[in-house]
């Protein structure tokens, strides 16, 4: 069974946690004693069964009815195992939201039919685009609170569509009218919306395919570490971000521009003749190169991989940043000077120009080499994708 990571998106109180709770409950992905515990706790707080409590486990979250930090919950499908990522919808908790959503393959944007579009609806939609999610589904929730009205559903669909058009083009998305609380069109087909003949959310999820073309791209193996065995032999360790590698192949390390031949590939404790994107390998080369250390990128000699002195990136800042700071890209890091090309407020997508003190490899890719962390005293204060 394949795993798919799905992030929820949407304004606070539009029902993200309740929807995952409902998915867990209806697919029987949650143990009975957890359900009992939630039942008990809901009662203590004088509420009916709160599906959201299957996710919101902090005392404060339950008391205040809000998600503070990310949680992952596994929903069992027929085709996939879904790692559902529940994120907070409050704007001030964006650092937590991104700590969850950045790990997703796909997203579900939730919009309440009762409240309609709100601030974070648009914000999360922009973030979904910025994150480069493979696909997006949109659910219109709380249909039970608007009398399961088709007209109300269509109003929300129209609003979201016009919002989507204002900032970018996206492929067509599916809109599904649901009630997470009552369970309409989540896993089970609703008896209350005869006017809707499309798929349930669960059926829609089962149609997703995870995009994985990374092995077909050029070889990128960032050196994570170098281990010296007691025999003096050196093992170069790293995760293949893209492409493939095989024994006997000539490789080039950048920025040192040292060339070598791959003598052996060790994955964990066995020897292999080749390895592909996603694998963490150990590599032994035919010569001792002291310059090969964390931060070097292994590619093929005919590749035009070059170090960059400056780059432009679309960034999300979590707080105000000084002009001089540290950026990380994969295993490399350098001090740098940042300048805003197209400024934006905290949490919105801005365009920044980075001038690196030490040149490093950054490229436009959906791998660690295309993604940067902006750090202040070791703490992430912003993230960016190279353009």
């Amino acid at each position, binding site marked *: 069974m394949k795993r798919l990571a799905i992030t929820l998106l949407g304004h606070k109180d539009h029902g993200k946690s309740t929807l995952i709770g409902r998915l867990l409950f209806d697919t029987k992905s949650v143990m009975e004693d957890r359900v009992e515990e939630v039942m008990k706790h809901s009662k203590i707080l004088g509420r009916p069964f709160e599906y959201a409590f299957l996710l919101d486990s*902090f005392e404060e979250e339950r008391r205040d009815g809000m998600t503070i930090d990310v949680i992952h919950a596994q929903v069992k499908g027929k085709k996939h195992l879904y790692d559902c990522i529940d994120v907070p919808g409050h704007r001030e908790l964006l650092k937590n939201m991104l700590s969850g959503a950045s790990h997703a393959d796909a997203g579900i944007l939730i919009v309440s039919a009762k409240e309609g579009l709100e601030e974070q609806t648009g914000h999360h939609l922009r973030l979904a685009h910025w994150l480069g999610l493979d696909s997006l589904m949109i659910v219109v929730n709380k249909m039970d609170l608007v009398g399961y009205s088709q007209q109300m559903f269509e109003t929300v669909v129209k609003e979201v569509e016009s919002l989507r058009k204002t900032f970018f083009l996206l492929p067509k998305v599916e809109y599904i009218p649901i009630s997470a609380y009552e369970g309409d069109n989540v896993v089970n087909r609703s008896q209350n919306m005869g006017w809707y003949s499309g798929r349930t959310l669960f059926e829609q999820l089962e149609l997703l395919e995870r995009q994985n073309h990374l092995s077909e791209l050029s070889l990128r193996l960032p050196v994570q570490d170098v281990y010296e065995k007691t025999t003096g032999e050196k093992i170069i360790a790293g995760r293949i971000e893209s492409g493939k590698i095989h024994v006997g192949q000539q490789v080039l390390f950048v920025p040192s521009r040292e060339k070598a031949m791959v003598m052996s590939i060790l994955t964990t404790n066995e020897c292999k003749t080749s390895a592909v994107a996603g694998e*963490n390998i150990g590599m032994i080369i035919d010569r001792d190169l002291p310059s090969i250390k964390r931060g070097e990128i292994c590619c093929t000699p005919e590749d035009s991989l070059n170090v960059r002195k400056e780059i432009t990136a679309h960034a999300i800042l979590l707080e105000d940043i000084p002009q001089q700071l540290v950026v990380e890209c994969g295993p490399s890091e350098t001090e740098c000077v940042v300048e805003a090309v197209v400024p934006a407020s905290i949490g919105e997508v801005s365009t920044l120009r980075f001038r690196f003190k030490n040149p490093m490899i950054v490229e436009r890719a959906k791998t660690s080499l295309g993604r940067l962390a902006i750090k202040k005293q070791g703490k992430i204060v912003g993230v960016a994708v190279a353009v």
Partner: protein
Amino acid sequence: MSDLKELEEKSIFTIREAQARFKNLAALWSTGKDSTVLVALARKAFFGRVPFPLIHIDNGIDFPETYEFRERLSKEWGLEVLVPKSIIKDDLSGVRCCGSNKTDALKRLMEERHFDGLFVSIRRDEHGIRGKERYFSPRDKEFKWDYKNQAPEIWDYISQTDDASHIRIHPLLHWTELDMWLYIKQEGIPVNPLYFAHNGMRYRSLGCTQCTVGIESQASTVDEIIEELKTTTTSERAGRMQDKEQENVMQRLRALGYM
């Protein structure tokens, strides 16, 4: 790439990343299945040798099987095991026992040895509160977990803060209980015999003799445990007192530095 392989790759990347970023690592090893899998993964990550010491906090009232298993495996795998003693003060349980005894013993050892990173084998599916953890989680000098204001962890990037006394590293966060057993089977990893049914009872989650309760079970092999887990309707830590005795106990324990 197979499902288990994907889980393994994420863990190995995390373990190696910790080794590259921290100067002085250690790993908690209760001898339970999760921390034993972690040790097995570390052996894989570093090609046969675990480059950091393991810590088994010993309160003197662990099961005899636990001590035997610890001795056997540490010899077989050439592990360096540190055994800080935690003192049972009186008849305590839950928050007070695990909080004051085990955590205190760990604090003393961490200070003595200046460990800046500690591997802990928690998983998100074990408990709602553990589900809220990050892969790399800073703890302050009092070992407190600032759960209301966790540092961001975006893509594979982590935050390291100056005021942290050490960072907890959780390479198994994304595994489920069933994944663990499937992996134990696939890799032939030795496990503590207490997991296997004896006279119609086995342990599903291991603590010390004070806070662990067995479950009724006939599962006496890894395959039988896997079958049992596929149909069970109760969660793994149902037999652990610190998760149950009162609402929010686990949250308070973790905020105080419990594993």
